[in-house]
């Protein structure tokens, strides 16, 4: 921890070398919301040098947790988001919850998930578990496309999700670490009870939560969890799915932050799209440089979140592609004005 604290001090005195990539800074123009200034304020918070506590807590919620600053950091061993989350934890304990986040927390209180009352999914048999994330649950097109792909490749899955089942990410983002740990433990029990060898899911956030943050919270689900996109690519490579080609169609792929920056999945979706015959039109900010869509509950401030969304929409529109696609149900929903599709839908449509 001392090493990490030293890095926080280094970050607070860095020339802000990653600033160009921070979507919150770019969408608001605020120096205060740049990574380096956040680090300085966090350091001052720790040193008890700040008097305006609400202003400080608001600052730590002015972050999309997108990881651009991590990808572009001068230090390989530093992740500013760890400190931002730590401060959100302190804020939560002091009852500081931004309005955008409080609705979600209310739902968690009542229904155990971020969306509201819903049915529990628990069906099928097989060695592979298909976890239906909260955002996938709300998107019947992604669900049916994924189902179609699995059927076509003859893959039997145990499908689960809905009800009060959630990976807990919204709680993690809100700084409710006890709530998050509870959710992680609930998920661990559920998954271990399923007796599956591998889990697939459409949501990059769920993967990161289960692979990284659960372990930080002391929970280890000990099962490989991959994105449906990765799984579909395996099926294609094994010859279990054959795809028909489209002609004269351009497409722009929006890289979801966690998938590109944390999970390093950049080429797989592009390879699949090219295989289907699409001509890829990249934005000026693509791959690890792609800007965040703003998410739903990661940023605490509604105006900031909308400004990030508008910025990304405009960047995507610049490509003038016929279709837009992503690989994250949240991105798809946030960027719906572009008739964004999920890559599962594109693959589903291309099945022979």
């Amino acid at each position, binding site marked *: 921890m001392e090493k990490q604290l030293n890095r926080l001090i280094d*970050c607070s*005195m860095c*020339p802000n*070398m990653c600033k160009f990539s921070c979507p919150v800074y770019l969408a*608001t123009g*605020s*120096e205060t919301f740049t990574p380096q200034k956040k680090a300085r*304020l966090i*350091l001052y918070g720790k040193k008890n040098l700040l008097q305006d506590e609400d202003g400080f807590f608001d600052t730590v919620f002015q972050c999309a947790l997108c990881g651009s600053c991590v990808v572009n950091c001068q230090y390989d061993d530093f992740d500013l988001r760890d400190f931002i989350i730590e401060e959100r934890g302190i804020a939560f304990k002091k009852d500081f919850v931004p309005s955008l986040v409080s609705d979600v927390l209310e739902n968690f209180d009542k229904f155990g998930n971020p969306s509201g009352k819903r049915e529990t999914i628990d069906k099928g048999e097989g060695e592979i578990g298909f976890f239906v994330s909260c955002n996938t649950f709300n998107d019947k097109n992604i669900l049916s496309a994924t189902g179609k792909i699995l059927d076509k490749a003859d893959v039997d899955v145990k499908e689960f999700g809905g009800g009060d089942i959630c990976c807990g990410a919204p709680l993690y983002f809100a700084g409710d670490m006890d709530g998050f740990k509870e959710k992680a433990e609930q998920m661990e029990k559920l998954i271990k009870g399923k007796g599956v060898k591998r889990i697939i899911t459409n949501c990059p956030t769920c993967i990161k939560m289960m692979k990284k943050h659960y372990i930080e919270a002391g929970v280890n689900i000990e099962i490989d969890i991959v994105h449906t996109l990765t799984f579909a690519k395996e099926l294609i490579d094994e010859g279990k799915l054959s795809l028909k080609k489209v002609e004269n169609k351009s497409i722009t792929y929006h890289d979801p932050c966690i998938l590109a920056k944390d999970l390093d999945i950049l080429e797989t979706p592009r390879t699949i799209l090219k295989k289907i015959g699409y001509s890829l039109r990249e934005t*000026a900010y693509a791959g690890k440089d792609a800007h965040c869509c703003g998410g739903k509950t990661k940023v605490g401030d509604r105006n900031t979140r909308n400004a990030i969304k508008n910025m990304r929409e405009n960047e995507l529109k610049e490509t003038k592609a016929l279709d837009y696609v992503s690989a994250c149900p949240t991105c798809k929903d946030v960027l719906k004005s572009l008739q964004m599709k999920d890559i599962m839908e594109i693959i589903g449509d291309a099945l022979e």
Partner: protein
Amino acid sequence: MKVKSFLSKGKNISYEFIKEVKRIVGEKYVSEDERDLISYSVDYWLYGVYKTQFGEVPAIPSAVVSPKNTEEVQKVVILANKYHVQITPFGGGSGVLGAAIPFNGSIILNTQRMNKFISLDEISRVAVFESGIIGTNLEKELNYKGYSSGNIPQSISCSTVGGWVSTRAAGQFSTKYGKIEDMVLGLTAVLPDGEILRIKPVSRKSTGPSLKHLFLGSEGTMGIITEVYLSVHKIPEKVIKNCFAFDSVETALDMVREVVQTDAKPAVVRIFDKDETERYFGVVSTRSKYQQAFGVAGKILTGKVSPKVLNILNESKNKIGFEGMEKLAGKVAVIFISEGDEDFVFLEDRVIKRKAEKYNGISVGEKPVDIWLDKRFDVHLGPIILRNGGIVDTIEVVSLFKDAPALYNDIIESMSGIKGAVSVSGHYSHFYPESACLYITFAGFPKDQLKYYEDTWSAAMEATLRHNGSISHHHGIGFLRKPFMQKEFGIAGEKMMKDVINAVDKDHIFNPGKLVEGKDGKTVK
């Protein structure tokens, strides 16, 4: 506020001004909040940055105002005139001379909401940007369309085009593409009385003294730049890289001078002195561990520095081995990047190789160039040194070729002699047919940080002036170099500079305490 300012005290600003300015730019874009006052209290003036870790900052602004376009800037400036509120423009805040520090409790005018790429005229190859766009994004937008500005400063990821213009910045590819003053064709600025000045984008004209040049290097003292027209070029089709080893800085300077005095225009030319050659390329050295880590200053250290400091500085050494590395041991490395139209690049490469041969340069191939390309934005060591109680900074000066060797020797010796110095090294990175820019990096672990810092700066400035050099090539003046402006310009020159600034900014609205002594009629510090 618990965070204290140590250079300049703030003052209270009228409630009416705040109320009215909120009406102009919107409530959200005017702030008197603690978090914002702290965030705009220092740029990248190194001693100021050093102090921040202890909760001290140079100067706290009265408020931060972030307008979204030229028209809003105009209204803010007119209002500031009405209430006699002073304004310090803030671009990326990467300036290293304290030019964006809000003295006298001025308000900050943050340009970073104006960060759009406006348009590209592909026929004339002119691009227009809002002034607050960060360099990396400016380049990304241009690259996307197949172009580049050619201005690639080390701070590209944290500085704005408005800041570049205001400081006369220089990029790593300047020997071919020039400094920012060679790229700016026109601009839009809001003057101190609130008038909007639009300077047409053409290459050359004969319409009296150039108003554009008044803004180049004006460091926010004459107005707020809101839009910049830049000349751009196609991404080069051919690139050739070369590295040679020479016996001394003098020989390397002779060789490079002869190259740039032909028609050759290599984009990158860098001469690294022996210490920087060692550090950059990690060549094996027979020198003592102190000399290896600290270079020239290591000679006088003889074991006085703690192993911790030794480790810190050694960390900056390149650790990647490569073929031909030994050729650089004890030598001065010179790297070249030639780029552009294939035919010209091949010709230029021939000229470079011919001149290298003439001065017995040993070819080391491309690898050192790749290592440099890889490391050229790496400044991670700076904060580590500051955190450990050290001081680190850079100083860039320029002189004619005839004075360059003597200036190099004098500046290194003078700076190394300051108590507390542990490392002083140099490279040349911007060349013209007549002159070269010398860039010094220094670090010290002194008992009295401020004294060491001030003495080292004075030593460098005095040495430069002794050899007819100019005290800044591209970082500018800010407040730190202000005391040397009279020696730079002479009494008449400094007075003329003051007269011009005071004539444009009669009521001293913009950036108090910068560029020339007594700009605002008050002495700061």
